[in-house]
Structure formats: structure tokens, C-alpha cells
């Protein structure tokens, strides 16, 4: 055990910072993100990264990635967020990409890896269904083999960015097996295929990220099956266990803290500023302490992941619980900090910037409360926090 910071990581951070300074176009900085940046921004940024050889920050060298350690990946993410860069397509990079690299055949890799790296093909994830949330394996969307195609029928829900995505990776039932996990397969579907319908779901944060996706006799070539029929559950477990360290969204948490401090220095309160209010400041320091603890929990998970240590799963589940609960607490404090402007429903970040809408405090307050409402989803997505508790109880205590 020692706490010396690896000078190589410091040098790497500087390299990323210099790169961002030189290559992040000013018109791509600080574009409002509704969970993710708009597709055009993601696409342009992806092209720039790819041209620099940084198109796949999370993949190993043998798969055409940068071969960065988990710690380097975290630094890259942190610096990108701090610089206000657009997001990358996380579905392609962190979920589908590793699956393609691990389970895909040569044709499939050839078909999809290039467009992902060049920012030409964006992805969404078709897992949840109305009847299959936490109990994912009870999904019912069906794929029947007819000649050289699968005919897909069914419905997916809570599909983030489906309205922007070019392709979707799907879990489908190819066989009514005795054990429900056994008959599941992993299928790639072009969203432009006839019979695919996307319907928006506006969430309580006033934004549209979620969708329902309907499949009505959708014809999918059999070449789009990853692995073999029935591999779906195995692939899903691989995909969900692939990365724990970044689920904390630490860079975003740090942005929230900075925002809180900015408000504390700016907003008026009885006998001075918000930063003179004892109760608020006590909440602030408790949050700061927890952020610092979570920062090290992220580091612990990253090192375990890097070493392929199975303990990364337990600690990863703990991190998910703690970080997402903290996201909720911080954003509630943001609402609180805004005082009389907290309850005001500013135009949603979805609506872009309208010069004709000019509500008081808009510059400081707009978008913050949307974050607070959005963060209610954090403890649900990626395996609800209750599912995480079940995982911890099982893996740690063998109950």
C-alpha cells in the first residue's frame, strides 16, 4: 500500500489536456447535454478523436483501441467533461464495442467497428421491456428464424437515444426454453428496417431521452446474430460486468459541486451570501467529504478491474449505490441553493437556446433543476440500487 501518484498518469493528464486545448473546436464546447450530447456533436467529436488515434479510448490495443488502463480512461473522461467536450456514444464504445470485440465474427467487426470509430453510426440498447425490468431474463420480444432472416416481434422500453440512433443491439427470445435465461440471443438491428417504430417518452426532467421501440415483423439478416443462438445471457453478463469504475459519473458529480460553490458565492441570503449560511455550508462539506471518498472508491474499483479481480463486482455495486445516491443529494441541494428560483420551470435544455425567452436568473439556474429530476433515474438504471444490494448480499455474504 502506498499513495504516491504515478508520474506517468500526471504526464498523461497533461497530454489529454493539451490535446483538448488544441483540438476541441470552440463551437463544440459546452453544448447542453441531455444525458448525451446531440448526435451531430457526438459525431463531429468522434471524427476528431479518431483522426488523432484516440477514437476508441476504452478498447484494448489488439482491438484497435488505445490500450489505456482503466485509470487512464478515467482521466480522459474527467478531462473531457471538465473541458466541456461532447460525449462519445457510450452505447457503442462501452457496451457494444467490447461485445463485438469479444464475441463478434470478422465480418461483424468489419461491418460495425469502422463506422463507430468514424462517428458514422450511433447505437442504442434494446434490453428492457414493459414486463422485463429488473427481471431482464423474462423478456418476450421474439425472433423467429425464417430462412436467412429472423422475424422480430415485440416491444422495448426506456430505450435512451433510440430517436437518434442508427442501429440498436437487442436481446430477443429465440427459443422458449425451460430456463428463461437459456433462450435469449443477441441481435443487431438497423433502425431503418421496415417495422421498427420509435415513440418518445418525455421524462420528469422535461427532456426526451427515453423511447419505446416497437418491432412489427422486422426482418433481420441472420448474419446480425452475435455468437450463437442462446448466447444472449452470457453476452449480457459480460457486457454488464465490463466496467464498474465509470458508473459513478465522478466528473459530473464534480461539476455539480463546482456549480454549488459558484452559487454559494453569488446568491444572497440573510445577513450576506449563501456561503454565510451555516446549514447550507454543513451540507456542502459533508458532500465534499463524500465526493472525496467516492473518488478513491473509483480508484479502488479501477485497480481491481485492471487486475481482473472479481472483487471489482462487489465494490462496483457499492460504488454504484453510493455515487448515485450522492448525485441525488447534490442535485437536491442545487435546487435548494437556488432558493426562490428553485421551483421555477425554465425552458428545458432540450429546447436549445432561444434568444426570445429571457427569464430572470436564467444564465445561472437553467438546466440545474432538470438535472435534479433526471438523477432520480440514476438509482434505477444500470441495475436498480436494490438489485445491487442483492448482488452484494449474494457475493459478499453468500446469503
Amino acid at each position, binding site marked *: *500500500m*502506498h*499513495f*504516491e*501518484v*504515478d508520474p506517468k498518469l500526471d504526464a498523461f493528464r497533461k497530454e489529454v489536456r493539451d490535446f483538448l486545448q488544441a483540438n476541441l473546436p470552440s463551437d463544440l464546447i459546452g453544448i447542453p447535454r441531455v444525458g448525451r450530447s446531440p448526435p451531430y456533436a457526438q459525431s463531429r467529436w468522434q471524427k476528431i478523436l479518431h483522426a488523432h488515434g484516440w477514437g476508441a479510448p476504452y478498447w484494448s490495443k489488439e482491438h484497435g483501441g488505445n490500450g489505456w488502463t482503466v485509470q487512464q480512461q478515467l482521466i480522459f473522461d474527467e478531462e473531457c467533461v471538465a473541458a466541456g467536450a461532447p460525449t462519445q456514444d457510450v452505447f457503442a464504445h462501452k457496451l457494444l464495442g467490447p461485445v463485438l470485440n469479444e464475441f463478434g465474427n470478422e465480418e461483424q467487426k468489419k461491418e460495425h467497428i469502422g463506422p463507430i470509430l468514424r462517428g458514422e453510426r450511433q447505437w442504442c440498447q434494446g434490453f428492457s421491456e414493459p414486463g422485463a425490468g429488473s427481471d431482464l431474463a423474462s423478456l418476450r420480444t421474439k425472433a423467429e428464424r425464417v430462412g436467412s432472416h429472423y422475424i422480430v416481434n415485440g416491444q422495448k422500453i426506456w430505450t435512451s437515444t433510440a430517436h437518434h440512433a442508427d442501429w440498436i443491439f437487442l436481446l430477443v427470445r429465440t427459443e422458449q426454453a425451460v430456463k428463461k435465461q437459456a433462450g435469449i440471443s443477441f441481435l443487431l438491428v438497423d433502425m431503418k428496417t421496415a417495422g421498427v417504430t420509435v415513440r418518445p417518452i418525455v421524462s420528469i426532467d422535461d427532456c426526451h431521452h427515453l423511447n419505446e421501440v416497437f418491432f412489427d415483423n422486422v426482418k433481420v439478416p441472420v448474419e446480425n446474430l452475435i455468437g450463437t443462438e442462446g448466447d444472449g445471457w452470457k453476452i449480457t453478463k459480460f457486457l454488464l460486468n465490463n466496467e464498474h469504475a465509470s458508473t459513478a459519473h465522478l466528473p459530473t458529480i464534480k461539476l455539480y459541486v463546482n456549480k454549488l*460553490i459558484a452559487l*454559494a*458565492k453569488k446568491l444572497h441570503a440573510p445577513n450576506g*451570501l449563501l*456561503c*454565510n449560511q*451555516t446549514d447550507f*455550508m*454543513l451540507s*456542502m*462539506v*459533508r458532500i*465534499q*467529504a*463524500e465526493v*472525496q*471518498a*467516492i*473518488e*478513491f*472508491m473509483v*480508484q*479502488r474499483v479501477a*485497480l481491481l478491474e485492471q487486475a481482473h479481480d472479481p472483487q471489482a463486482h462487489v*465494490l462496483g455495486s*457499492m460504488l454504484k*449505490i*453510493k455515487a448515485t445516491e450522492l448525485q441525488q443529494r447534490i442535485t437536491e441541494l442545487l435546487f435548494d441553493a437556488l432558493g426562490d428560483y428553485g421551483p421555477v420551470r425554465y425552458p428545458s435544455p432540450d429546447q436549445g437556446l432561444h434568444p426570445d425567452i429571457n427569464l430572470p436568473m436564467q444564465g445561472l439556474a437553467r438546466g440545474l433543476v432538470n438535472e435534479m429530476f433526471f438523477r432520480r433515474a440514476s438509482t434505477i438504471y444500470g441495475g436498480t440500487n*436494490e438489485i*445491487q*444490494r*442483492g448482488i*452484494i*448480499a449474494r457475493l*459478499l*455474504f453468500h*446469503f
Partner: protein
Amino acid sequence: MQFHLNEEQSLLQESLRRFLDNEYGFEYRQSIRRTSPQGLRQNWRVFAENGWLAVALPESVGGFGGSIVETLIIAHEFGRVLVIEPYIGCAVLGAQTLLASGDKGKIETFLPEVAQGRLRIALAYDEPGLRGLPGPAEMKAKSTVNGYLLNGKKLLVIGAVDADKFIVSTRLEDSGRTGLFLVDADTPDLERIDLPLHDGTVAQELVFKDVHISQTAMIGNPDIGLQILRSGYNQGVLAICASMIGAMERAIEITSEYLRTRQQFGQPISSFQVLQHRMADMATEMELARSMLFSAMAAVSSGNTAHADQSVSFAKSLIGRSAKFVCGQAIQLHGGIGMTEEYVIGHYFKYAMVANALLGSSSRHDEACAAQLEHQCLEDCLDQEQVR
């Protein structure tokens, strides 16, 4: 950065655990607690013989040149079985403050004795207005022809009962600086009041009424007296944090065993989801606490004192709250048996409550950090105005 123990550190941990598992069971602890609430001299000798009192001291004074990491490994293992002997009070707080003073003469005279277990030094810094956090002392040191006269009170001095010497913080009357003095425990006119604590140990309150000490008793440079004090104190706080994490770890183990064996409604109660989730929360809280401790250790090792002081306060606050939660829930999951003085688990909660209160409670540390942050914010505001 690396969070797992290296080979030497693992060996240290194993030797501690072997000794404590074999020799320091709960019944034994309770028996010495009744006969000798400050722990046994013979155990202290064992600690010394194993080098546990010397690991974090420099080789020049007979130590092993270890760091805060080794101190915390020991504190953690002691926390697991709620060791009575005042390791933190007498082997960390006092020794590390003396070391931080840079007072070569006294370091070379006394620290070898500390390392050998022949001398115990406790740290007397707390006062009514401080509530556990080091700050400018009110206790006065008035210079006389051949020394100083001390007047004032020191609260809740842990490890004081068996201490041979105290490091006492004072306000030097002529300059207002913080003077640290190494004072013999048996100095005439020094009144020592025993304070039994809920965790079974005994602390002391020290009352100085015109206590005369010699000129040579001062340690370190009073210009940086408060920094010296804070540096030794920080090591003690992190040790107590590590000890609380050890206590949480063991309380969770005991509780998980109990849930597996206790039957209600015809099944082991570990099969109930509500209890499984509670255990998951307890374990999660503990791992967050451990991460907090690592972050504070990194901050202290970084040499940035402002960052170190803040992180140590963050750690004491967060880990104290975690320990209260985890050990409180450990009682809850046991049900009635958890309330009995005879059974082990309630003592973990008592320990957590006392440890949280020692060296400044969660709320005390929060207040200090909040005041510091407010100060920073206001300074930033001023700077911005000046720019404009």
C-alpha cells in the same frame, strides 16, 4: 497508488491477527477491562517485543522507519477486537507529536524508550472551547526565572492513566504563540482526574494550578507549535479512523454469522431480503469509509498541509458517522441479544460512539470544514471584486 498491502505489510497484519485471535478473545478483553481498565502492562510488553510500538518510528530511534500505513494496519487490527490498551493514546498521538516537533534532543532521548514500550507519552491538547479539535490553547504558560507556570485544564486525555509524560499545549503568555511542553505525569500540583469511558477504557482530565515546569520542558519551535500539534494529532485521528473501520469489519462478520444461525418463522433470518439489504448497506458504508481513509492517507502523505487537515477532518466525520450506523445496525439485526452487556455486539456500538466523540466528533469536524470553506468563498469573492 496501490491499495493492497505489500508483503511486509501483510506479514505485519498477519502477525497481529494471529496474536489477537489467539490471545485477545472477547471474554479475555472483558476480564482485563474489569481488573485493569487501562489494559495490561504485559500486553504492552508483547506489543513492544513484536515491534508494533516502533514500526512507524524512524530507524534512528530504534524504529522500523515505517509510515502512517503501518500505524493504521495496527490500529485497524486492534479495532477489530476492541483492544483496551491505549495504542493510539500512548504510541501514536504522543510519539508522533514529539516526532513532528523536530526536537532532536528529546526525540533521541525519549522515542527509543517509547519504541521499547518503557515510556508512554500522552497528548493533552483539548480544552473546553475546542471540543476536540486542536486550536490556539487557553491554558497559559507564564515564564518565570527558571521555567514556566502552567494554569488551565486539559480534557479527555486518552492513554493518560498509564502515561509517564504528557505533551501539553499552551498559550505562551508573552507572545501568544503555541508552546508545547513535555511534562512529567507526576509533576507536583498537577491534578489528574480519572474518567471511565463507555468503551471500558479510562481517560483523564488534567488540572494545572500554578504547576511549575522547567525551561527545558519546551519542545519544538513555538512559531509552528500549532502545526506540530496538528501533525501529530492527524496521525492519531487517522489511527482512530482505521480502528473504527476494523470495528465495523468485525461487527459485520459477527452479525452475518448470527443471521445465518438465528432461526425465525422456520428459516434462518439471513433468508429475509430486508435483512440482506441492510447488511449490504452496512458493508457499503464500511467500504465508503475505507475509501475515505485511503484518501486522507494520501492527503497526509502528499505534504500539502491544508489539504491534509481538511481530509483528516472529512475522514473523522464520515467514518465516525459510518461506524455509528454500522455498529448500531449490528445491534438491530441481533434483536434483544444485542442489548445485553454480556454479549459482544453491543460493545462495538459503544466503541463506535466513543471513538466518534474522541478527537473531535463528526459535527465538530463538519463545523470546522464549513467555516474554512466559508472563509475560502469569501476570499474568492473579494479577489473577484478587486479584479473588477
